[in-house]
């Protein structure tokens, strides 16, 4: 009988432990199949809890962070009243959203209307499961990591399109169509950059991509290949911003034009889910950038043994989240600094600039590998 197994260090630990514990059971129901099934279920439960904890736990922190960053960019203070410097403001927001009235507008396709926010949530959750947070901390250490991410990322647009279409609102529909065109276009350059990383690292497994950067800072993919790495990183930054529908590429929401775009008609919990998806996507994209370019959970060693010893003492997961939050901070600063391009300019930018540059980058990367590597 085939029993699926999850290949990660935690999984190995559970698989080891389950037969030992099973010895205490009566011998009549002991069997290897049962052990592996129980091990799988326990594993799956742990993994689900871990992914949910990272995602749902980080979203309120990020919303608070966004409000504070935004406020300080704009010479304000931001939330101040609830908790120390407004730290528990988001909890109040979330609780309030949960207990708000929920209804669908008349003429809306009710099934699709309520399904859309769930679909939007799928993609960032799956991506999160693939990312190595530390040497032993990865939910699914699959060998086809990058192709799986590319495949799953396309899911987000489906939810937005469905949500916009089923709302029975012209603003929503326009926002959804804009978003569809934008996300599909930018997915191409997003994919290209990931392919560039795959090419130079020689692996599609995220763990081995990370471990390939072991050494000093100059061994990270962003610095290892001179110039090309930094260009690739900047291109990744742009295309992932567009992929997430974040300002300045938030033409799908475009509050000034479309009053919120695809989520104009959403309220209460479904709206909170869209909000949540936006911020989880922020975490996963930052994590992806960290893994592919900034050395993942590896400490920023500088080649001096005395300093490096101390840096290595810090757990990898701390380094990982430090880098992730630095990336998130960059995304937020960009969001509150730039103005929004128009929809056709955004398309022009992708098809006439980003895509050709990406192709050139791929060829240059290949040439570099042939010549130097």
């Amino acid at each position: 009988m085939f029993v699926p197994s999850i290949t990660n260090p935690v999984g190995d630990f559970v698989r080891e432990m389950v037969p030992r514990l099973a010895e205490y059971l009566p011998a009549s129901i002991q069997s290897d199949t049962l052990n592996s099934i129980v091990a799988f279920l326990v594993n799956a439960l742990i993994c689900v809890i871990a992914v949910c904890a990272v995602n749902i736990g980080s979203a309120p922190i990020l919303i608070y962070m966004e409000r504070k960053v935004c406020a300080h960019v704009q010479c304000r203070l931001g939330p101040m009243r609830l908790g120390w410097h407004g730290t528990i403001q988001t909890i109040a927001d979330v609780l309030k959203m949960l207990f708000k009235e929920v209804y669908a507008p008349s003429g809306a396709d009710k099934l699709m209307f309520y399904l859309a926010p769930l679909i939007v949530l799928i993609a960032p959750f799956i991506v999160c499961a693939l990312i190595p947070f530390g040497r032993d901390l990865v939910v699914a250490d699959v060998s086809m990591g990058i192709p799986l991410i590319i495949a799953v990322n396309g899911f987000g647009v489906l939810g937005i399109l469905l949500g916009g279409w089923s709302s029975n609102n012209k603003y929503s529909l326009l926002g959804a169509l804009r978003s569809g065109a934008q996300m599909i276009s930018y997915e191409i350059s997003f994919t290209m950059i990931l392919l560039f990383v795959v090419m130079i690292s020689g692996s599609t497994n995220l763990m081995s991509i990370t471990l390939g950067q072991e050494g000093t800072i100059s061994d990270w993919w962003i610095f290892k290949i001179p110039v090309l790495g930094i260009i690739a990183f900047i291109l990744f930054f742009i295309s992932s911003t567009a992929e997430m529908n974040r300002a300045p590429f938030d033409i799908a929401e475009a509050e000034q034009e479309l009053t919120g775009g695809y989520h104009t008609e959403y309220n209460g919990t479904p709206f909170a889910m869209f909000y949540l998806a936006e911020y989880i996507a922020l975490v996963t994209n930052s994590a992806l950038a960290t893994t592919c370019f900034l050395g993942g959970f590896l400490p920023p060693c500088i080649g001096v043994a005395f300093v490096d010893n101390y840096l290595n003492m810090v757990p990898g997961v701390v380094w990982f989240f430090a880098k992730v939050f630095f990336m998130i901070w960059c995304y937020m600063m960009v969001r509150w600094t730039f103005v929004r391009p128009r929809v056709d300019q955004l398309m022009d930018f992708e098809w006439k600039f980003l895509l050709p540059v990406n192709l050139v980058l791929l060829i240059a990367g290949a040439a570099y590998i042939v010549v130097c590597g």
Partner: protein
Amino acid sequence: MIQPRFSNLPPGFRIQRETNTEEFFINMGPQHPSTHGALRLALRMDGETIVELVPHFGYIHRGMEKQAESMSYLQYIALSDRQDYLTAIQNNLGVVIALEKGMNVGVPEKGEYIRVMLQELGRIASHLVFYGCFGGDLGGQTCLLFGFKEREMIHDILEEVTGSRLTTNFFRPGGSRYDVPDTFIPRVKAFLDHLEDAMRDYERFLSKNIIVLERSIGIGVLSKEDAIAYGCSGPVLRASGVEFDVRRANPYSIYDQFDFDIPVFHNGDCYDRYKIRIAEIHESMKILRQCIDKFPKDGPWRSKEKPVRLPVGRYYSEIETAKGLYATYVVAATTGEKPYRIHTRGPSFPHIAALNKMVQGHKVSDLVTIMATLDPVIPEIDR
């Protein structure tokens, strides 16, 4: 070829065209974040492209002109605050000049200086709101806050002088309600020094930003002929290449004593309308600096107080507010304290009338940009 789906167009739409695609209608407003108040715009769209636009007014029509007929002249000054609330202090002057023409009273020199300084402060305040709304409507929320940040300092000065932040109700025939406090001149001076630095930052923030340039150059072009024909005035007219400013064409108060330029741009697109307002802030600062130098320390700040009674006749005044030509037309059928009719010509009304001409063939996003650069105030249109 698909026949147009709407054989009978809704009222207001006029363009008859054959199309391969299906047109649809979008309703923007009356509650919409970028219509600058309670304005409703009916858009006829082909995909994201606007075919035709019909503005619907009246959502904030408050019947001010009817009400003015049973009010005294002085009470109407307070109503004029509530027309264009961004330039309330300028509207006051427009009404007061018309009354002065009827009463035949003059203003002493210090009173005129107070008027000019408050006018220019009001102009800067309005243009700062424009700066904020322009950036904000393009999607840069941060600009909105930057514009309002410096405006608060003007409000502090206005509050010290007039006692009110927004609706000032300050000028009276023959001068103003109060003298300015001693701290007025130093505060304006300090504010100007601060604004000089701030404007440098703000221009760096928007003027050279590639996305702003892409989104505003060549968008919403209003030709010189159209601008005149539709009765546009103020920065919108001057951005289209017409050098017309009431301060220079028919100088009122003591504007003929100051050395300032009328900035004129010639493309008539959104970027020029943005640049011209930035240039006007600098010109206003120039006038304010001259006022500070020449400000008379002593002397009366208003003329002898008289009851506001106008002899029979029709009186007309026009001033240049931050938005454009603001004209007041007072009809006195009997000598007395009440007008027979007061009519106000606000600058925003013709701008919205010309909007249809500007947006055709542009995208929805451009409509937002164009609306922001017209800088309309809807209660002044509807009155």
